[in-house]
């Protein structure tokens, strides 16, 4: 039933020095719907595509506000994300209680990274099956971190994880230079455009399947869903049509 002898658990190295169980856990992230994050000099934005099980069911939760200054977006096993987000909420509160200081994003990220690492080195545990984007603002400014099941954490300018996220990353790489100087609104539009690029042919962004999270300097992290994002969804792709990608923009109207 196994592909090879070395992928039964996370405490066995393959002869090449790989840990297959961890690599398989990374695959679980790719099963989740796409989420995107971008930072500018002043803001951090998360955008997520939500799935619903069936027509009449509700949509998933993809963005979780953790503290007033930051939130996370998840791709993969939502229940693993809940465990991690509860832990992050506790740690954030502890920092506020003992030091009266919002926890640094680098600090909270490395704490969940360390937790995830433990799961890859002990028998009887499994790696987390979820990838996270952690975005917000702390005393050192706006930040975006990526967390992977292996326990790897990286600070990014922009990032996309989840199903078909390669397309989102391509968009982000192409527009990388614009992000730093972007305004709040421009950044949100970029995030939505990146998200849109990763959609399959038959899908589009609607007020039901899209979530946004925005944090900024002197601005609390806030989640936007439903009618609140209608305006952005209407305008996000229009302005692009006039821009350098005129041809592609036209498709929005069809």
């Amino acid at each position, binding site marked *: 039933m196994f592909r090879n002898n070395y992928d039964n658990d996370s405490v066995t190295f393959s002869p090449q020095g790989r840990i297959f169980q961890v690599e398989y856990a990374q695959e679980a992230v790719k099963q989740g719907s796409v989420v995107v994050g971008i930072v500018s000099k002043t803001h951090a934005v998360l955008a997520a595509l939500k799935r619903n099980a069936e027509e009449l069911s509700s949509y998933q939760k993809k963005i979780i506000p953790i503290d007033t200054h930051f939130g996370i977006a998840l791709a993969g096993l939502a229940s693993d994300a809940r465990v991690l987000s509860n832990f992050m909420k506790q740690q954030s509160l502890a920092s506020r209680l003992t030091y009266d200081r919002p926890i*640094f994003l680098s600090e909270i990220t490395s704490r969940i990274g360390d937790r995830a690492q433990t799961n890859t080195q002990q028998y009887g545990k499994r790696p987390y099956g979820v990838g996270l984007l952690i975005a917000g603002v702390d005393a*050192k*400014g706006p930040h975006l971190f990526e967390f992977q099941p292996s326990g790897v954490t990286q600070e990014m300018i922009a990032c996309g994880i989840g199903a078909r996220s390669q397309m989102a990353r391509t968009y982000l790489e192409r527009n990388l230079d614009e992000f730093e100087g972007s305004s709040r609104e421009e950044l949100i539009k970029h995030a939505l455009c990146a998200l849109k690029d990763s959609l399959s042919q038959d899908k589009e962004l609607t007020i039901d399947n899209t979530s946004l999270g925005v944090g900024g300097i002197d601005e609390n992290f806030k989640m936007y869903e439903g009618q609140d994002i209608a305006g952005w969804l209407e305008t996000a792709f229009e302005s692009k049509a006039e821009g350098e990608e005129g041809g592609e923009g036209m498709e929005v109207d069809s």
Partner: protein
Amino acid sequence: MNHNPQAWGRPRDDVYGAYNSQYLPQHHGGPSAHPTTHTQSPIVTGTSVIAIKYSTGVVIAADNLASYGSLARFTDVKRLKPFNRKAVVGFGGDVSDMQYLDRLLSSLDVQENYSHNNDDPEDTKALMSAKNLHTYLAKVMYKRRSDFNPLWNSLLICGLDEKNKPFLATADLLGTTYSAPTLATGFGAHLAQPLLRKAVPDEEASQKLDKETAVEVVRECMKVLFYRDARSMNEYSIAVVDEKGVELKEKEKLENQSWAFADQIRGYGTQTV
């Protein structure tokens, strides 16, 4: 059958007699000779710490004496501890508890520097502020008093807050905290505080005060404290914290003392009239 699971597998009392717990420590059922006790009083102590906020920073001072009761036991004890370039803590009360807190702060400083780069201006902005430090120390003091095992100190925590505004607050062995433009612990709360308040009656006045005047007021208070506090000495430490960092002097001597008032004092001592 004995239905109490704790008794299973043990020698039966009705056969062997009750277990003799005589040699065991108290928490395992041994004889209770004494109740658990904690510090009831400080041993080696430092006296007052005083501090005053001025327009762009804070001045803090404490003398260099550690007394053993009324004996002036150690005369080179530094009671002002700079935490980083934004915060200084002044310690009054038990000196060994001060040393414990100093080590606690030093381990906190090591932790803070795990991910700190002096080269990075963003990192410098995010330095732990005096306000953060005060919150932390207040929690430590309150936890210890709630365990009935207090750290026998009065602390003044001063420096700059997150917005680089002057910050001054106290925390003591009871876990009590408060903040004011001028603060003094111990004997200083009675002797120096009125003088400090005369210079700076309120927050508004402290924002108008310049550094030189603030230092002068504090030095004057140290002198008055030496005149009247029998647990004080004439060598002291003084620190100024502002945006430029901490400027700490640890071997200051009281100057221009005048004991002319001394023979006017009546009511205690050896005089009979």
